């Protein structure tokens, strides 16, 4: 069996976001990482492979992006993926990315496809289900566990007030979130040294038009600084809440 993990190349979550003319991200000084949900998905894929007694024999990763995404892909290989695919195109909207991934892998025989629930750059939250549609296979959302006992695969889904467990015929897309595994795996020294020798296939994109276009971005307003009020001075507090914050 083969697992594919879809990874996004995103700015580090601690990046101070700046835009150029409000239209594009200023990438100067930005450190790029594997999208955190995708990194957890990859970790879970490797755990499944390692505990499958050889039944799961290959974990691959895929991303859509230019050559600048290769350090992120190499990190996925260092963590333990066996091979990688890069669709050589600037990532457009989710429709574009999902379509490119579907076209790149449609005959590759992946049994389980894992994708993070959202990416911490554009937060589209629709990649996994779109991919399932393009491939005409099942997609399961809000997945907090993927389990394999040697015969059957089940997935755990978070639902309101509880959890449901589904059995899933392969192939399927699992859109994973919190709980999928404890923490992302740190690459070992050996993993880092062998990453460069693992196969990274670069495939050209197919013709596809993005359906949406980003017109502009706005940063959230700065939070007002905290005002300290003396605990004895209730009158001032009430006045501030009434006249300035206008909450009472």
């Amino acid at each position: 069996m083969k697992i594919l993990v879809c990874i996004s190349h995103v700015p580090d979550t601690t990046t101070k976001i700046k835009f150029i003319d409000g239209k594009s991200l200023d990438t100067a000084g930005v450190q790029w990482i594997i999208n955190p949900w995708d990194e957890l998905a990859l970790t879970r894929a490797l755990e499944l492979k390692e505990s499958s007694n050889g039944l799961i024999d290959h974990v691959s990763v895929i991303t859509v992006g230019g050559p600048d995404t290769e350090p992120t892909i190499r990190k996925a290989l260092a963590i333990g993926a066996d091979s990688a695919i890069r669709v050589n195109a600037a990532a457009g909207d989710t429709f574009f990315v999902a379509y490119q991934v579907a076209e790149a892998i449609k005959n590759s025989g992946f049994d389980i496809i894992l994708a993070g629930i959202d990416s911490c750059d554009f937060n589209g939250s629709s990649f996994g289900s779109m991919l399932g549609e393009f491939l005409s296979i099942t997609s399961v959302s809000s997945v907090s566990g993927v389990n394999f006992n040697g015969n059957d695969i089940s997935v755990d889904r978070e639902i309101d007030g509880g959890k449901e467990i589904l059995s899933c015929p392969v192939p399927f897309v699992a859109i994973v979130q919190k709980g999928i595994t404890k923490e992302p795996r740190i690459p070992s020294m050996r993993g880092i040294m062998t990453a460069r020798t693992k196969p990274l296939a670069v495939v050209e994109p197919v013709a596809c038009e993005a359906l949406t276009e980003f017109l502009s971005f706005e940063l959230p307003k700065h939070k007002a600084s905290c005002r300290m009020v003396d605990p004895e001075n209730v009158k001032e507090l009430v006045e501030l809440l009434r006249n300035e914050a206008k909450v009472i």
Partner: protein
Amino acid sequence: MDFELTEEQKMIQQAARDFAQRDLITDVIERDTKAEFPTQHVKKLAELGFLGMLTGVKYDGGGMDTVSYVLAMEEISKIDSSVAVIMSVNNSLVNHGLEHYCTEAQKEKYLKPLARGEVIGAFLLSEPEAGSDATSQRTTAEDKGDYYLVNGTKNWITNANSASTYILIAQTHPELKHKGINALIVEKNSPGITLGPHEDKMGMRSSDTHSVMFNDVKVPKENRIGEDGFGFKFAMKTLEGGRIGIAAQALGIASGAYERALKYSKERKAFGTEIFNHQSVCFKLAEMAIRIEAARLLTLKAAWLKDQEQPYGTASAMAKYWAAETAMWVTTEAVQIHGGYGYVKEYHVERLMREAKLTQIYEGTSEIQKIIVGRAICDQA
């Protein structure tokens, strides 16, 4: 001149950072207080390959360069120097010597398990009356034909209890002075070895440090490293590389304290503004940044020279001296910037200050580094 790190070097730096900031930080204060050995963390260090990262792939190590090692040591030392020193001793003082000066049989038996991190090692040079003056070894390794009979005491031995493999420096031919010294591989469980109590140290309390007593310990002749009398040269060569590790550790202690002080200075307010905006604090932080950058460049240069197989003894002495002095100064000022908070354990900087002190002392005091640099510049003149 290229200051850019390779993709692999950046990845190693990030891996060490993730390990330190995710795992080591969780119990570093508690382990320091209890002087508790970081057993679980050492296991993870081994799994990740840090314990043998400098050893060649042929001997089951990571095959990394020294620049990568410096980057990893800095990140780990920002959080926990006790773990860093375990890693440093294993890589620089034990594995390095075994890889470069031992026979294939010795490497097969001793180096491979060390490089895989299955066991750890210790380097036994210092004695109660022979620290910086390493020529005055009193521990004897008497030549008995097919074995050496070892008697004496070694002091301040990092990893003494947790290690399985010792590299011992001892005197075989006292009349030849330093040319009569040998280096021997000794298995810790050999009959006649006893440990003194765990040293109750000021800092790096979570690494285990003991005296090691040898009483008629038999060491097979095949465990001698190099020719008869090679021990002193072996020790000095090994310490040249060791200094890079300790420079990187001191650099990490300094940058860890600096990062905490910088963050605190932008949160803490006094006289109506964040204290960073007071010039007295801002200037301290600026000076910290400058001194740390100088320490980093010196350390990376020494590492680069080693990787290029060029002489690096003077460069590593310069790096170790400056990084250690920087660590002491930066951590002291970091405590000062934190004020009262800096004096309590929760804020980490007091621990970093205690750890910094040791970097001025072990693997060659700051004064010894100046002797090494002084002799080198004298020879050049």
